[in-house]
């Protein structure tokens, strides 16, 4: 099961310090692990939400640093892209995986898959027994849909103002964090549903 899906910056942001990342979209799946842990302390809902937000920031920061190290090492220059270049930009995207140790920040070890598309990163945090090959495909698919439906290569802010579209997309292609083995027919059927839902 995927624990979270994030869209966040991987470029320097003026208001933030060097290694920080602005999280534009975050979705956590499943019950809050804090609720089920054997800890003595009871957390209020506000504290739990804060903890979740902090965990998300930790993941975003780790991916941000992984992306910048990877880009530096490969020495490739980022080429400016315009709307319409979605397919090209996706092919060109950097990808990798970060290992998060147990406790830092999730209670068990995670494999965090990331896709660096220009100035944004798309991230999936997967649990130990998840099929990473499948997760990689799903991440690419999700990214492609986000780029297309939210016109992310432009200067708009639809990723912030139309986040419900991402929710609908996730509810079909990654329902409750479940990685699905969808052949092209099943995928088409779900994508049609997503498209019709977004059109309303």
């Amino acid at each position, binding site marked *: 099961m995927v624990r979270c899906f994030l869209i966040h910056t991987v470029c320097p942001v003026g208001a933030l310090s060097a290694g920080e990342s602005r999280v534009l979209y975050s979705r956590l799946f*499943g019950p809050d692990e804090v609720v089920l842990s054997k800890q003595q302390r009871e957390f209020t809902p*506000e504290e739990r939400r804060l903890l979740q937000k902090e965990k998300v920031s930790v993941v975003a920061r780790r991916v941000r640093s992984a992306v910048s190290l990877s880009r530096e090492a490969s020495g490739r220059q980022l080429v400016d*892209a315009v709307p319409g270049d979605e397919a090209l930009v996706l092919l060109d995207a950097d*990808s990798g995986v970060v290992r998060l140790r147990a406790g830092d920040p999730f209670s068990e070890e995670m494999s965090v898959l990331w896709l660096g598309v220009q100035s944004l990163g798309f991230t999936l945090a997967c649990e130990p027994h998840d099929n*990473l090959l499948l997760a990689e495909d799903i991440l690419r698919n999700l990214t492609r849909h986000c780029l297309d439906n939210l016109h992310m290569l432009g200067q708009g802010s639809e990723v*912030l103002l139309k986040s419900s579209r991402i929710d609908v997309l996730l509810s079909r292609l990654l329902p409750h964090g479940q990685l699905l083995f969808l052949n092209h027919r099943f995928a088409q059927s779900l994508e049609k549903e997503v498209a019709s839902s977004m059109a309303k």
Partner: protein
Amino acid sequence: MYSLGSESLIKQAREIQETELQKFYSRLVKLLQLKELGHETVDSLQRLHLILSANKYARTLPSDLQQRLLLLLSSPSEQLQVLSSALLRETPPSSGEELNNIQENVSQLNTHAAALLVSQARSRTDLNNLCAQLVHGLEGRPSDRPTRSLMFTLPVLNSILRLSRESLTEEHVTILNKKFVDWLRYASILQGGGASLGGFFTGPRSRQPLPTAELDGSVSGDFFTVLCVGQGFTEDQWMNVYSFSMLRHWLLTYHSVSSGNSTMDAANRLQLSLSLSHSFSNDDQSEVDGSVVSMVSATSSSSRLLPPKERLREKAFQYCQRLIEQCDRKAQKKSDTELQKACMVEAVCILDCVCVEDPSMVFRTFPSIKALFSRLSSDLSYARVLLPIAQFYLNHGEMAAVDCECVWKLVFAHFPAELFNDPFLAHELLRFLRQNLDGLRLRAPEFIRFLPNLLKFLAWDSSAVVDDFVDLLPSLVTEGTAVEILHTLLDLPCLSATLVLQLRSVSLPISESSSRGLLPLDAFRNPAFRGLFLFLLRVETGSGHTIDRLSTLHDLLAEAADWPRVVRCAQVVPVLLHIYFNTVVTVGQEKLLAHLILVMLERSGLLLAIPTYSREIHRVFSCHLLRLCKLRPSLVVDQSHELLEFAGTTANVYSKEEVYTHVVWVLGEYLSAASDSRCSVALITSCFETLEAVLFEITSSAPPPGTVCPAPKVITTLMSALAKLASRSHDLIPRVSLFFSKLRTAARNGSVAWCADEDDLVAIVTRGEELWFLLKAPGVAQSVLTPPPHVLTPRWHRDTNLAMPLQLRVLTRLTHSQ
């Protein structure tokens, strides 16, 4: 992509004033009271979501707004469901009652409401209730509920089970086991949906539903799987997909060997599976159209005798076997080819689970795994599929008495050498190593031989995999490999540069040799230097610890010192060296540790010239030289010849200051009869003379051109060492006194050529004087300069002299009432 507009939107959302926010809330409540909820409402809800999620700290919504949002959860419009679920997830719940109300109407529960319930569950009880209701919902007859409405049930259950396996009772588990069997094995093999596209006047009977097809276009001959396609799908086919997607986790959670007690004991199980395989082999295939019907399902009838858990295992086995067969077909679409790879991985993993739980199935499973291995082993693009196969071999190869040599060769020799730059393979291979260290040490102990190959992952992408190596390195350091590992780690930046060159030489044409920045590439392609690079790129240990022409190699790669990959690599080496040394002291005998000291001395001057790299390595060496000698003081006497040679070379003072300082210190501290009885007066004298000569040299003239003055620490350490040696052999004391008086005279003139700072000079002279005075009482000098161990280690209450006052003080405090 990320624009200033977005940044300012977030800023506005965060800094919205309370009054404005309250106005917004009330406007929103009014909008939600309207009959028709249009674009304006949706936009406002979206803006509210941005405001709520932009902040770390939660905002509480007014209760009337929260009520309205809860009502939206069951709205017919999906967009409103989505928005209300997202909004309610961002705020703390006002009370649990409303959620309970939603939960009661499970038939109206949609996926977004379920997501809200799961994320806001406050305790295991909440989750248990939800699970119970979801399972109950699944039990109903398919005709009772609309199609696809409960399809999200399995993902929700899976997400809960991830963290709370106890949320399902035994009964629920049994129900689900049975359901899984139905969906996985007995889903419809006819296409759904589209088959009913007959015209208005065409009756249902005149249109025959089409069977599902395989990915290569041919008609499906066996039961439905995720790799079957059709124009439309029936509900049970959808459930087939959802079930398979969570099957591995289900088996791991509820079918692992330690959990639950099977109703069949091992003997019965073995008997049944043997009879199944017997009937399998007896099937007369000539009677069946072999090209269409899969061989797997021929045995399905006999498994009806099994209880649900075992039956699911059997069906899972059949499903995976069928998937593996289906993956042999050439898919028409690229996305399906990728899916086939993922399915192969999943199938092998599930078969592994099944065999771990029921070892008698290993014999039935191995033939297909073996066949898959031989089919894929020559194609590197299937490397990630071969890793689960390797796991299977590791877990069950011994039981099946199969030779796994070729598997290990592929995984440890081939993959790192060819695919070091695939980040996903690196991650998975290193994870495989980490998780199976014990198993590998038992069943494939020769994997340690491939250490130089495995380090290629580290050399290529240091920052990504250093964490894995921090965990792995301790297990890879053995008496046999220790020295080679040390050399390899020190030359890791060279390996990094070589890997870059290897890839470049493949991609760049040979004619481009004279362009800028490719000098190392020329060297790489030059046959004269081939041997050097081939040594670095070696796959196994055992061909020598290092090479003679190391300095040549370093010169050739000098240009690579600022390549980003090489620089990153150089940054992780000190960390790993610390781990290395910490491990080696636990596994190494005296002889090995002695050898390591020599390696440290030798290599401190033989490192790739990356800025700060030498300094960092010297720091690590110094720290561990100290620890080694503290642990085994006799090493100093043992290696005195080499240590003296190092200490006697004045050039080392300037080029390897930190290491030099520590070498001198250990000589002064441990070259005594107390550490090792072999230490003779002659040895002490010769050491003294060596150090004295160096000290005289560096304090009589300016440093050589191109170097800075030696740090005061070097000089004071030399002086202290001389004093310590003299305190052990009193004949040397006059010579020390001579030096100190000369020092005082020279310093009286003010400044000296060999010391830049006046304060430093004063400190040095003061130290010299202290030592001189100390040496005037030779007997005392020895105990002060080299105190015996029991003085250095505080024993507190264990020391009878110290204990008495402490005890009295405690008693006094206890007995006095004030």
